[in-house]
């Protein structure tokens, strides 16, 4: 089994925590994991990209090859389009619906949705609305993990355990909000 994921978004959207949770969950299921990210300039409102590779055998490359990703997870719809050439022919897209507009030439959002919808397997999630419903707009990335959980080769129980682990120092209330956001995303 080999499952390659491209995680995308904009600096500050929680893309790297998202990657960390899936990676931790996969390891709890005894899978091998490699996760690559770029720090530095990317943090300042720029694009953030992480490659996450999950397999039951040894993984050589830190980077996913073009045309081989099983899944793109994005916290932002425009960012999906930047990486669609990584997707394998039967690959999935799970993305937040809300645009992050910090550039003057951001395209019409309906055109972006239209392009994503043309691709075979996609979920466009109202992550902010669901996160607020769960109790905090900051849990949007947990909604997205929940939404991706049916496609991921990682058990939901391991993903939830990873969520609890990541927020363990923040107290029970924060953990509950994030778990609730995960569940709302999974529905």
């Amino acid at each position, binding site marked *: 089994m080999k499952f390659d994921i491209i995680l995308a978004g904009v600096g500050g959207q929680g893309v790297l925590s998202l990657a960390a949770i899936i990676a931790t969950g996969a390891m709890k299921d005894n899978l091998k994991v490699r*996760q690559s990210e770029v720090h530095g300039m990317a943090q300042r409102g*720029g694009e953030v990209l992480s490659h996450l590779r999950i397999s039951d055998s040894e993984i050589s490359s830190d980077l*996913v*090859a*073009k045309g081989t990703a099983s899944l793109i997870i994005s916290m932002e719809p425009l960012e999906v*389009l930047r990486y669609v*050439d990584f997707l394998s022919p039967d690959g999935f897209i799970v993305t937040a619906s809300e645009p992050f507009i910090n*550039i003057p030439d951001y395209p019409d959002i309906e055109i972006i949705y239209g392009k994503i919808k043309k691709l075979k397997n996609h979920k466009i999630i109202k992550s902010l609305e669901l996160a607020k419903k769960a109790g905090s707009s900051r849990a949007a990335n947990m909604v997205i993990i929940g939404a991706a959980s049916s496609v991921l080769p990682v058990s939901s129980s391991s993903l939830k355990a990873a969520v609890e682990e990541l927020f363990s120092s923040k107290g029970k209330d924060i953990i509950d909000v994030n778990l609730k956001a995960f569940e709302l995303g999974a529905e």
Partner: protein
Amino acid sequence: MAEKVLLGDEAVALGAIHSGLSNGYGYPGTPSSEIMEYLIKYSQKTGNIHASWCSNEKTAYEDAIGVSLAGKRAIVTMKHVGLNVAADPFINSALLKINGGLVIVVADDPGMHSSQDEQDSRFFADFAKVPCFEPVNQQEAYEMTGEAFEVSEKYHVPVMIRLVTRLAHSRAVVVTGKEKEQNRMKKAEDKKTWMLLPALARKQWVTLLGKYKEFKKDSESSLHNPLYINPDFKKYGIITSGLGKNYYLENIPELSVKPSHLHVGFYPYPEEKIKRLAENVEKIIVIEEGYPFLEERLRGILKQPVEIEGKIDGKVPQTGELNPDNIRPALGLPVRKTLAEVEALPGRPPQLCQGCPHIDSYNAIKGALASYSESVVTSDIGCYALGALPPYSAIESIICMGASVGTAKGAAEAGLKPAVAVIGDSTFYHSGMTALVDAVAANTPMTLVILDNCIVAMTGGQETVVPSSRLFSVVKGLGVDPAHIKTIIPLKKNHEENTAVLKEEIAYEGLSVILSVRECIEETKRQLKKGKANK
């Protein structure tokens, strides 16, 4: 033995701790910073080691040499361009009889994710004639660090570990090994091997060349330089180095045969193994991360004519990072089919954060220069380099750490005035101070604006080596006339006042320094968060 999920950087740090490290030094620089961050955290938690940031890579390296003199193990970390700054002590230290193990870790940045160039540190190791390890994954990063210390103490030489961004900043499981005790203090015995007076250095140089022969012998038997020969397939063979190996392995399942293959993970490179590979193939394809270091040398090594393909003939891209896709043409593999093509999209470049003090500093500088038909603003390495982009477009040169000061001085002395240099607080301490002394000596008509955000912001918020409160006295101490050292607070509400101060100092026909002091907004946010968490 334990399993840990670590970044490549962290794997090096833990490898060093488990090898009996006593001291760690470095200067922050992407992608190397997380090595020292790990060591500093460990040091604060346990008190077992000394780990600290330094003014620059040269001072860091010299500190590490001192630790070695005392017989203990030291590591020094930097990004590739940092080694340019540390080159003097690095090259010279190869001639010392290193006492406690001395390991230098250099993180290269092919693809320039966060750098000014793509320089390949293997050239520096080769130039200094010291051994160099190049890991391809986190486990090797951990293990090679331990080995590097052993080699350093066995041959009494500094040893380099070369990392690249992709390894430094990717995570995987590392299985840890035995932990070694730290060395006791034991001063180097023979002073003659530690003083590079010409008469002594000549002897040390001969000694080093002798050691170099040993490194080459070791390279032939090193497990990090595995050679596989497929006697039934002569058409071509592969040489990989660094992460080129991973991308090659990724593509092997699609090749109809498994070609002969040499991987080089320990330098100096194994000449005999390269010759043996060449005897078995008609063509060698070289896949290496970085410059075509091995490829350029192959012709000099091989006696027989063998076709060589790689970066020099363009079969493998010579700029940017390697990846599993861009090495496929060299292997004769077609481009993989993708679900969809990426069309032209608006980019999302990094930006100065909302509320960043640099924005207000740049607005004031632009305001102060508005009345001049010609002027120059030189800049430096740090977040404030983002002032190059619209809507600011406030700066005109970005070269290397500290260059803004001397460049403005030279421009002013050539008659290009007014000349304004902007530099961050940490970059000023790193290598702006010496150039400012030059400007003091010449009383050059220029204005230096030190953007003091009280932190090393670009690399993730490390502490500046000297706290902000001492900046005025440092500048005054370097000899700048105190009447022309002005402090401003870069806030929107102070814009008129700040512009006036800058205008006045820019008009002054001599050297002036403006300290533009306000904490990095990200750091302010971090502190607020911490404050809340503590309540």
